[in-house]
């Protein structure tokens, strides 16, 4: 890696900022600001720093509307908002998707709008930790905070997660390396275990790697739990792991002082889906008969957990909440974005702070290409190519303040560091404005009847 000169050319420093990238929500960042742009970030990982030092070439700065020739053309805010409000007001099966990279304050406005028009509100959990949320509803949530992990944990297990690549500071700040109150020697006081079919970068720096067969998670966890219950395993190998290794691992987990299991999409999206997480939660419950164990899902976006917590608190369901009958409903396979799109039920799609164009399966994107799409975002992306109305928002945690929830459920207030571009609007304002305009259109319709 080439040596990079430290950044010395800046006007001011903003300290104690919160990273708006992954679910670690590192809140110890320092931004170096010059001419109202973040030109350098201290303490962040490369992923976080590259997002915060935004690329202005791709920044959406003015509202856009797709014209009859199929091209996105610049327009004023009133025209764009009226067009978006008209689409929403006249829709029969609208879906408002995203929310994971914006603030709780924006979500509050989103619920108001969604409930009023009878929309489905869904977030990225539908394609990532949705199975974890279902399993939590079934089996409970033995969660702790990352602070407890840092200060107490002497065994860390990563399963189906490659934190070294996806959450680079997770190991450095919370789990593996930091010196804690009861773990004075940091990494030397901890045993790191990685359970993953692949020999990932996280596995390379771990003390133990358990490389079970792909899709063998459920059988492996069942065997581990059977050993904890004192059963002698019949098979020589379970999911490709020798019986002795499973027995040794069970013993190590039993005799640890404080353990934490971090699980990622490798577990949520292999064959048994939510039942893998269910088995993982039950494993933690079993281990608590011998020691102290907890688990935390490795959430991806900085506020993906926030949407689930906020929706559960406000509406009783974590994601895929359907207001079409006037009250909240939730059913996997029925009220989730991917299912609704692949079944071609959606007639208007509003995407806020997300990029379905880049992440959704082909069938879902094919339908998005055929229906009106409203995009509220800060950057040009594949979803912009699908959008009919583009409303440029603001960067939460950099240009506007807002609340987010860390992967362990700790709320963090993200402060503003610089001013947003003059032509952009804050996400919360945009959604509130849409609500008011939709209300006006619907009111006029009722009056005319």
């Amino acid at each position, binding site marked *: 890696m080439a040596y990079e000169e430290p950044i010395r050319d800046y006007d001011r420093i903003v300290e104690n900022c919160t990273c708006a990238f992954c679910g670690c929500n590192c809140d110890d960042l320092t931004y170096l600001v010059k001419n109202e742009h973040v030109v350098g970030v201290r303490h962040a990982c490369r992923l976080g720093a590259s997002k915060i030092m935004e690329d202005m070439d791709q920044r959406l700065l003015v509202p856009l509307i797709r014209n009859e020739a199929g091209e996105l053309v610049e327009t004023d805010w009133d025209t764009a908002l009226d067009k978006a409000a008209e689409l929403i007001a006249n*829709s*029969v*099966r*609208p879906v408002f998707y995203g929310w994971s990279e914006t603030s709780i304050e924006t979500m509050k406005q989103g619920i108001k709008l969604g409930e009023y*028009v*009878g*929309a489905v509100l869904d977030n990225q959990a539908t394609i990532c930790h949705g199975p974890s949320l*279902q399993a939590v*509803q*079934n089996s409970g949530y033995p969660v702790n905070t990352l602070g407890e992990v840092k200060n107490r944990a002497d065994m860390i297990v990563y399963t189906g997660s490659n934190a070294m690549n996806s959450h680079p500071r997770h190991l450095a700040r919370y789990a593996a390396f930091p010196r804690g109150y009861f773990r004075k020697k940091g990494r030397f006081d901890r045993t790191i275990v990685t359970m993953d079919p692949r020999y990932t970068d996280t596995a390379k720096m771990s003390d133990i790697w358990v490389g079970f067969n792909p899709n063998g998670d*459920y*059988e492996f966890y*069942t*065997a581990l*739990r*059977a050993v904890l*219950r004192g*059963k002698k*395993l*019949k*098979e020589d190998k*379970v999911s490709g792991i020798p019986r002795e290794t499973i027995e040794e691992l069970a013993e190590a987990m039993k005799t640890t002082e404080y353990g934490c299991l971090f699980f990622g999409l490798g577990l949520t999206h292999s*064959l*048994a889906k939510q*039942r893998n997480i*269910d*088995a993982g939660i*039950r494993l933690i419950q*079993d281990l608590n008969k011998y020691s102290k164990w907890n688990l935390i899902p490795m959430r991806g976006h900085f506020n993906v957990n926030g949407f689930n917590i906020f929706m559960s608190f406000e509406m009783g369901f974590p994601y895929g909440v359907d*207001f*079409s*009958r006037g009250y909240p409903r*939730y*059913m*996997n*396979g*029925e009220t989730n974005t991917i299912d609704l799109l692949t*079944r*071609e*039920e959606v*007639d208007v799609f509003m995407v806020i702070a997300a990029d379905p164009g880049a992440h959704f399966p082909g069938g879902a994107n094919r339908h998005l290409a055929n229906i009106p799409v409203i995009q509220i975002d800060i950057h040009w992306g594949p979803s912009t190519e699908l959008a009919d109305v583009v409303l440029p928002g603001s960067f939460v945690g950099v240009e506007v303040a807002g609340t987010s929830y860390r992967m362990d459920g700790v709320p963090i207030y993200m402060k503003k560091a610089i001013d947003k571009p003059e032509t952009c609007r804050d996400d919360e304002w945009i959604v509130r404005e849409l609500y008011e305009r939709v209300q006006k259109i619907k009111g006029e319709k009722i009056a005319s009847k």
Partner: protein
Amino acid sequence: MKNITFNQKKTSTIALEFDELIPDEVYTWEKSDFDKYMVPIGNSRFPLSDYFDVEVEGSAESPAEVIMTLNGDLGRVKYIGSKMTDGHIVANSSVDLHCGAEMSGGSITINGNAESYVGREMTGGELEITGNVKEFCGASYIGDWRGMTGGIITVHGNAGKQLGECLTGGQIHVKGNCDILAGIHMSKGFIQIDGNVPRSPGGQMLNGDILINGTLAMFLEGFDQEEIVSNPTVSGKQFNGKYIKFTGDIIRNGKGSLWLNAEKNRHLL
């Protein structure tokens, strides 16, 4: 008897919700009532007459005297027979989600395939599907520990994942093959699968019976082999031949029984 026939006029890409059109609600309805009825579609309601031509013959004193026949493409009609307590529904097509969900009596015959959640949390009645069923047949609502608690589901084709999840009573008979995790978390009731199962039936089961007449490719470490039984009687039904009886799931101190056809599952002995 009252015969109510729904003949489809046009289909909708957005699913129609039929939870209000069950024998319990419509046994007193005349044709004019159906013509006035607005069916929920997305966030709005539209005239049912736009989508179905409804014929009504005879009269009924109670839901038990109603036979509802649905003709056409029902692939976008959800909640058929949901929460019904009596009467009979015949669907002459494949049906959409939640058919027979929470039904407590009466019967439904589906001459086709059924989407996911067919017979979800049903407490009584009979449900017969001549084709295949997708995931979560006879299962629970997310987060609930009680799935189907009574009644009978018969599937003439194949079944998807998590058949009879959290089964707490009743019987499910699948005449074809069944995907993974059949009877997961079940605590009572009986699942009979005549075809093959790839892996993990009865995961975390507490009680009840699962009988597999086909081949089971892989099973869980939480089950212990008890004995080989000739012509066993399982949940009141007699089966001919030799069956290997396993009990589990040990990881939950379960006392459920997994019966495997000995002839076809020699590899597990």
